């Protein structure tokens, strides 16, 4: 009867359970076991489905090399679905074989067994008492972090050996900077960033186990260490200023050469010959200096040695133009400088004797159409420049190489006597008037009161001066004429006849070999120093 009752009860149970969907519990699984200090440990499991019925769980374990099976001593300390093994029940270096079984009214279910050796499941608590302090090392600040091991971990006896790790970041950053501290409980951070709030965390790990959680964040504010950076800037600025000063000094020292490199001087025009304008308007000192150094243009005070390096330019002014210009001004000007006759003469100073259009060229291959009554003989190839006492004009000095010229020269230039009133045209001049060469004459002697014999120099046009005529351009002024005229005297060196061999050059002379930079010979003095000219 009793059996029938039990069977009926079971049938009813099965029927009702099937009707409601009840079932034995699902299979639980052991999720993890952990030991915080290598003295105790806790295991947690995950229950399966409960099958709709109240289910109980039980954990059974067996120790290595022992056949005994024990049940979990403590289901509560570790929380729900956990088993806590206290110190008495924990053995290190022993394999635990753990199983969880779920049981409900309809049945039970065993989990898969796992083997646990406590020494490999140690996960300590986070370090405690993390303290931060800012310290100074020779004026440089650094952060010192200290901490204590977790309370339960017994490192003092050596039972557990922990290694530590810390991380730091600024308040605004997202990246942590991690430092490994080893077994020490102290760490110095030197890579400080000035200003701002800094957060520090520490964690630990046993030799073989798991990392703890990060400790709670400790904060510290770094003071601003701008002065340290400022001193570096000061040093950098000083060095740059020094370099700048050195460069400036170097540039100043080499300014001249730099200037020449970058801006080469433009050569100024140097006009050969006598500047007539200067006579008109220039001062006496300038005129004297011009007379003295006829070859050179008036030197201005501003000229420097660089001017010597610059080649002289030859400036040719068409004679007609110049003469006309001169003539227009001659009537009023009071100076007694050298003037060229407007119509009949030209200032062909320095021109070749064959070039002058006013010349009577006998031996230059032109017809002697203008032989005047003076009856100048052939040998007498003096060129007479008529000086008009009353006039203001001088006939132009003509150049004509004397017989002193080298006979090898194909062209024998002659001195031609010319008068002021003779309008000599030189149609057959072998050189066109447009092509003037610059030539100079030397005053040899004064024939009459108002006649000056000039010794012409030949110019470049095939009538090179005698090589003996090297030096001296200075002429001696004999006297002053009545009317602002100058009589130039050319001293004849001894041994010369007729004064043909003049060894001096006229002030207005220039030849290729006539050097003016030498000192005057005895007897010849700088005209500028001879007599004072009337001021104009």
């Amino acid at each position, binding site marked *: 009867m009793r059996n029938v009752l039990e069977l009926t009860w079971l049938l009813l149970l099965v029927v009702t359970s099937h009707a409601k969907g009840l079932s034995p519990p699902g299979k639980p699984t052991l999720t993890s076991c952990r030991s915080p200090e290598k003295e105790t440990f806790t295991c947690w499991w995950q229950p399966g489905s409960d099958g709709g019925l109240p289910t109980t769980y039980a954990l059974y374990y067996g120790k290595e090399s*022992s056949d005994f099976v024990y049940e979990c001593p403590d289901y509560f300390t570790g929380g729900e679905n956990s088993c806590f093994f206290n110190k008495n029940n924990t*053995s*290190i270096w022993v394999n635990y*074989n753990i199983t969880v079984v779920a049981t409900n009214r309809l049945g039970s279910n065993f989990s898969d067994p796992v083997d*646990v050796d406590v020494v490999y499941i140690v996960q300590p608590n986070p370090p405690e008492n993390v303290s931060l302090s800012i310290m100074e090392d020779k004026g440089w600040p650094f952060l010192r972090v200290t901490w204590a091991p977790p309370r339960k971990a017994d490192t*003092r*006896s*050596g*039972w557990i050996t922990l290694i530590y790790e810390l991380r730091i970041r600024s308040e605004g950053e997202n990246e942590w900077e991690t430092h490994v501290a080893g077994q*020490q409980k102290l760490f110095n951070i030197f890579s400080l960033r000035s200003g701002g709030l800094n957060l520090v965390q520490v964690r630990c790990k046993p030799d073989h186990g798991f990392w703890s959680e990060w400790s709670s964040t400790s904060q510290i504010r770094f003071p601003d260490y701008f002065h340290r950076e400022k001193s570096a800037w000061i040093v950098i600025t000083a060095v740059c200023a020094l370099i700048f000063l050195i460069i400036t000094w170097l540039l100043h020292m080499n300014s001249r050469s730099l200037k020449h490199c970058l801006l080469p001087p433009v050569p100024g025009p140097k006009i050969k010959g006598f500047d007539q304008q200067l006579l008109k308007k220039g001062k006496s000192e300038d005129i004297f200096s011009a007379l003295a150094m006829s070859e050179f243009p008036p030197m201005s005070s501003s000229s420097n040695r660089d001017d010597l390096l610059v080649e002289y330019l030859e400036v040719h002014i068409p004679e007609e133009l110049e003469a006309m210009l001169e003539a227009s001004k001659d009537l009023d000007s009071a100076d007694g400088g050298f003037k060229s006759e407007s119509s009949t003469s030209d200032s062909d100073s320095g021109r070749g004797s064959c070039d002058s259009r006013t010349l009577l060229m006998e031996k230059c291959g032109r017809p002697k159409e203008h032989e005047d009554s003076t009856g100048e003989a052939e040998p007498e190839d003096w060129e007479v420049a008529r000086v008009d006492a009353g006039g203001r004009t001088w006939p132009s000095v003509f150049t004509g190489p004397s017989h002193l010229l080298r006979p090898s020269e194909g062209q024998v230039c002659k001195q031609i006597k010319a008068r002021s009133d003779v309008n000599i045209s030189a149609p057959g001049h072998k050189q066109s008037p447009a092509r003037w060469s610059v030539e100079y004459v030397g005053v040899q002697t004064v024939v009459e009161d108002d006649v000056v014999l000039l010794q012409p120099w030949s110019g470049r046009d095939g009538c090179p001066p005698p090589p003996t005529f090297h030096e001296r351009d200075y002429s001696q002024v004999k006297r002053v004429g009545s009317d602002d005229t100058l009589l130039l005297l050319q001293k004849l060196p001894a041994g010369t006849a007729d004064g043909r061999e003049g060894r001096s050059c006229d002030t207005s002379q220039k030849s290729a070999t006539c050097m003016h930079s030498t000192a005057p010979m005895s007897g010849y003095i700088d005209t500028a120093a001879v007599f004072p000219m009337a001021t104009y």
Partner: protein
Amino acid sequence: MCAYGQAGCPLPTLADLFERVMQQSSRMHGISSDLQSQPDHYLFPSRNMLRKWKCHTHNILTPGDKQNAKSLDREQLTEVIVRLLGAWGDPLSQLHQSMRQDQNRNKNRERFSHFSSNKVLEMSDVMQELRDGVLKMAEKMKLQGVLSNAVVPVQPERALHSSTFAFYKRGGLRSLDRNDLLYCLRRDSDKVKNYLRILQCTTLPGLDC
């Protein structure tokens, strides 16, 4: 290290000896971890055989928790250390020989490569050196009066483990046997390292353990 006081050689202090010993034990443990073919999983899948599975050094009484370890005095602890280290000399050499034989036979199923056989040899040497170092340290401790004059065995306990390798055989040389051996090796090296640390922290006063 010249611990014998040779001429011109500074005698190491006890702290230096401890430091050296600790370095050696760390190295030993590292090698044993390398030899372990399986990763450091704490939850091994249960094998039925493991319940009856023992290490050949099971008869050496070793403290299994902190209280037991602290209850041992220094002499006993040192003795345990030395015994443990000495117990692995033969098994490691035998393992090395068996591995080389397998290599010579050129078995494709051979799990342990040439690299592992060298590691086993290295492990054997390291353990031997460590044992010698611990003995020297014990002598030093005796000299300093830290250790009493308890007799520390010098000779390795060969008689107990004459056929140690056979201990692990279960009817044949299988890879499972080697795994058990290596597992025991790793555990014993961890024990030695831990006992040495306890010895160091309790013997040296100024150390910040």
